[in-house]
């Protein structure tokens, strides 16, 4: 800022909330998305405290109680019960835990691997760059769902397997973007200055380059959380992911399909929860992208 230029904060006093709102380009859908995400996180974390039922507790007398009605023992069921008489609201709350856990854990793994490989490819160049980037091309040549299925066929399903598979196959986008960003900054003055002052390659990468390339990586990460939540649900729905004994949204939808002629709610409500979560995370991703890179027009 030039000395003497009017400071943007001068003039009529502004409401700090409005300043904050404008500065971070917040809009009503974005604020709403954060509120929804926060609510889902609270429900997920608090499920064991809030829930009045056990997610596994079956009650054949109360099976397929519609939402907002009383069951056979005259207790109110907010979201009704499923074909085995298990409380849907409770199961959806527990399902949120698994969805969030899988989404976040798999993106952490994939993002870290991709970031490290992308940094290496961009900074080292030559052989490593070729190897890593060709590997990325190879993986993309196969439809992701097909790759997950092929690996699950050998490893078998389970929560850990799903997280690891989504994590270890999720590195490609991060590596590509990280490499491109490294190539863009590695010849800039601040990097050359650090190098000529004798900073080791590792120090240059971690201290000087990484902070400058994190923004797009975070944006991709936010979209990936939503994507991986959906993929994990799809795998559970197919029956190859997390076993049906665990209350996941995908597993609930799979069971609900068998009673579709009898009841709409076991299929509708977990899916709605899934859609709302994905929508909120995607909106936040869009917002982050606009915030970090104003050039991109959504």
């Amino acid at each position, binding site marked *: 800022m030039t000395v003497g230029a009017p400071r943007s904060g001068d003039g009529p006093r502004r409401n700090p909330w409005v300043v904050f709102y404008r500065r971070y380009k917040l809009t009503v859908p974005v604020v709403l998305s954060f509120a929804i995400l926060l609510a889902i996180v609270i429900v997920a974390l608090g499920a064991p405290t809030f829930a009045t039922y056990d997610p596994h507790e079956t009650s054949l007398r109360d099976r397929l109680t519609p939402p907002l009605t009383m069951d056979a023992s005259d207790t109110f069921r907010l979201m009704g019960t499923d074909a085995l008489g298990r409380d849907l609201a409770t199961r959806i709350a527990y399902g949120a835990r698994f969805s969030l856990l899988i989404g976040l854990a798999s993106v952490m793994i994939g993002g870290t691997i991709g970031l490290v490989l992308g940094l290496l490819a961009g900074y080292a160049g030559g052989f490593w760059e070729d190897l890593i980037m060709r590997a990325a091309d190879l993986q993309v040549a196969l439809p992701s769902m097909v790759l997950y299925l*092929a690996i699950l066929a*050998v490893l078998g399903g389970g929560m850990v397997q799903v997280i690891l598979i989504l994590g270890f196959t999720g590195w490609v986008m991060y590596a590509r973007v990280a490499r491109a960003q490294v190539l863009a900054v590695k010849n800039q003055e601040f990097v050359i200055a650090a190098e000529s002052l004798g900073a080791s390659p590792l120090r240059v990468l971690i201290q000087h380059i990484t902070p400058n390339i994190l923004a797009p990586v975070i944006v991709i990460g936010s979209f990936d959380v939503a994507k991986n939540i*959906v993929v994990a649900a799809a795998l559970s729905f197919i029956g190859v992911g997390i076993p049906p004994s665990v209350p996941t949204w995908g597993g609930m939808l799979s069971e609900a399909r068998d009673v*579709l002629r009898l009841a709409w709610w076991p299929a509708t409500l977990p*899916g709605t929860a899934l859609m709302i979560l*994905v929508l909120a995370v995607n909106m936040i991703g869009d917002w982050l992208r606009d915030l970090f890179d104003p050039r991109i027009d959504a």
Partner: protein
Amino acid sequence: MTTLIVQRLGQLVFVLVALTMLIFGLMHLSGDPVTLMAGEGATLEDIERVRERMGFDQPVHVQYGRYMVGLLQGDLGTSLRQHRPVGELVIDRVPATLQLTVLAQLLAIAVAFPIGVVSAIWRNSVVDRVAMTFAVFMQAIPVFWLGIMLILIFSVGLRWTPVGGRATPEAIILPVVTLAGVFMAQNARLIRSSLLEVLSLDFVRTARSKGAPGWSVIFRHAMRNALIPLVTVLGLQFSNLLSGAVVTELVFAWPGLGRLLVQAVLNRDVPLVLGATIIIAVFVVFVNLIVDLLYGVIDPRVRTEV
């Protein structure tokens, strides 16, 4: 052009080697694969039979070598459960998947195109805002849940369409709409942004300033250029389309490759899984090659480079 073809075929070889090595490696690491494949309740005799047939009494590199030699001769092995050659089983399912994916992509483009163009021309209008909001919602709906909801409304509620299968001609409607749903939204957003970008370029302003009519500027000048990124994305989408088809086929009991693959995974029928995966990989690489070649037809600038 020859370079391009050689490049793509080279990529195919690498994909197949990497894939088979991954699966063989994981199989080797995850303990005794035979017990796993023979399934629960298999007798010791069953297990020994499978072991011998699969060549698992041999060291891993010998097994892998045998498989690759077979693969080169077009032999994908035999299914553990269905006792038929894997190649035959897989090829039988290709038409159903092709029908589903091609129709879904055509529907997705047919709906997305007018929406994208109108949204771009009347940017920030009510139409644009409604369409783009709708697109954001559509993109958040998981494919399999959309399928279940359509079954709930149109098959269970209104009784217009069958719940699944491929027995009647109407049976294809819901799977195609389901699979098209997500791509519709994606394509509409893409066509809109691609056209908007072109409309802001100099040559469009030149066309306008020399007095060309509005429709001519959009369809003759801008659209041709806006289509180029779309073709690239459609090629890349094919891979995602197949991922979506796997799930859609399962929801609607559509007898395609995806359903075969899922059943093979549930049965732990590793030769069938590997065979189906290999054929899908071949498929994807060839579609991408066709898209690359098409690219040259559409954009003369690329032709000279290739």
